[in-house]
């Protein structure tokens, strides 16, 4: 086994920090390390937390860390913030709310940027989760801003997905209808002391009640909780609901290990193949013979883009008969 993998499994913070960096940067050599640490994964409980900017995700996570530490559980946090589409840079500020845990050896907090659309965010977050899992963290909390397919995918690969909203954001609830509702295992109304929290509670409950497939025997029906994260109100109840959801997963699937489930493995593997294709092909388009020539031909009106695409792809994928 490589020394990096050994250090990661032993919980060496620097080795873990560096490995996550290399995953983020998409270095091909990390694959070998990930293969080595894979047998040590599958033990952590992963919780995804998502919601619009400003709903209090980081504050809630800060409190959740506290509750988990009181139960003597170790915690890893991956806080994802958006990359600027203009400069490629990012300000990662989620740590601000969690800094009181920075000296706690049982807690590892890492900020990640979404990087570009070809960054393979889902893949790199999942790999980073594996790293924190292999280093021995009992719980891993993944925080994302709940917009875009990538981020929905990230929370989908958690054991329990918590969707956070605040009162009075009518449009926010509208947005939930569009798809996030299906991935939410627990809904949390944060800042519940604000006006309109009962209305939001009713809206969410109504939406969940309208989903008839949840009425079937043994289906998990997402609870809706009122929380005031900043005052640590309702957080213990949230932790209990998470426990309850975990038990329901065990009952439904016979265990918590994702890679023992065909649906999850299929999803992950599809994503991985897609990312490798992107890495190996799309990111190298400029090196591909004839790409520039094709661009020029289209600009000069000598060729249509559909023919150009065929002429680039067919030599590569020809044996699949892509027609």
């Amino acid at each position, binding site marked *: 086994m490589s020394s990096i993998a050994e250090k990661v499994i032993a919980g060496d913070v620097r080795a873990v*920090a560096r490995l996550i960096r290399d995953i983020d*940067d998409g270095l091909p050599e990390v694959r070998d390390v990930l293969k080595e640490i894979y047998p040590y994964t599958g033990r952590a409980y992963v919780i995804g937390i998502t919601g619009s900017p400003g709903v209090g995700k980081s504050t809630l996570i800060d409190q959740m860390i506290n509750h988990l530490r009181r139960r003597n559980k170790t915690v890893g946090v991956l806080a994802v913030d958006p990359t600027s589409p203009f400069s490629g*840079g*990012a300000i990662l500020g989620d740590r601000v709310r969690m800094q009181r845990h920075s000296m706690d050896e049982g807690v590892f*907090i890492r900020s990640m940027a979404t990087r570009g659309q070809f960054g393979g965010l889902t893949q790199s977050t999942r790999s980073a989760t594996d790293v924190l899992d292999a280093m021995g963290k009992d719980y891993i909390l993944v925080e994302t801003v709940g917009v875009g397919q990538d981020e929905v995918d990230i929370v989908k690969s958690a054991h329990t997905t918590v969707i956070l909203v605040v009162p009075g954001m009518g449009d926010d609830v509208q947005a939930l209808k569009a798809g996030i509702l299906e991935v939410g295992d627990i809904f949390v109304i944060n800042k519940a002391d604000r006006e309109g929290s009962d209305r939001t509670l009713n809206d969410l409950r109504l939406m969940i009640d309208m989903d008839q497939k949840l009425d079937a025997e043994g289906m998990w029906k997402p609870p809706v909780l009122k929380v005031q994260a900043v005052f640590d109100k309702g957080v213990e109840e949230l932790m209990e609901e998470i426990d309850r959801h975990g038990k329901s997963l065990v009952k439904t699937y016979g265990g918590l290990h994702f890679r023992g489930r065909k649906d999850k493995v299929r999803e992950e593997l599809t994503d991985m193949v897609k990312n490798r294709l992107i890495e190996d092909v799309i990111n190298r388009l400029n090196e591909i013979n004839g790409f520039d020539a094709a661009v020029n031909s289209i600009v000069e009106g000598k060729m249509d883009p559909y023919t150009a695409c065929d002429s680039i792809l067919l030599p590569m994928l020809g044996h699949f008969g892509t027609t």
Partner: protein
Amino acid sequence: MVDKRKVRIMVAKPGLDGHDRGARIIARAYRDAGFEVVYTGLHQTPEEIVESAIQEDVDMIGLSSLAGAHKYLFPRVLELLREKGAEDIVVCGGGIFPDEDIEMLKKAGVKELFTPGSSLEEIVRWVKINVKLR
């Protein structure tokens, strides 16, 4: 493979100084220059800063101080980095420093100090030249 490596910087406010407008402006300038900036918020101890910098695997720590405690706080950050074997993380500082303190801090290992006259362009350019991916 396309080079996706990014310089990561931690902007930190050590000590009791409660004014972070400058630190936020610098963080923004770094973001606009294409760096990934981890901001820690106010009132950080050197221990918290160093531990966070290691977890975040940053290439540089930018310390902001306006309250006069830099002569203790900055060297302490460098000392802790050495203790943790992380002295390859570049440390620079920004704020209000008397000239003689600048000399003392540089001797302690702070790579550069920026004062109220420094322009954002200058600070960003300095990072581009002096901070390499580790």
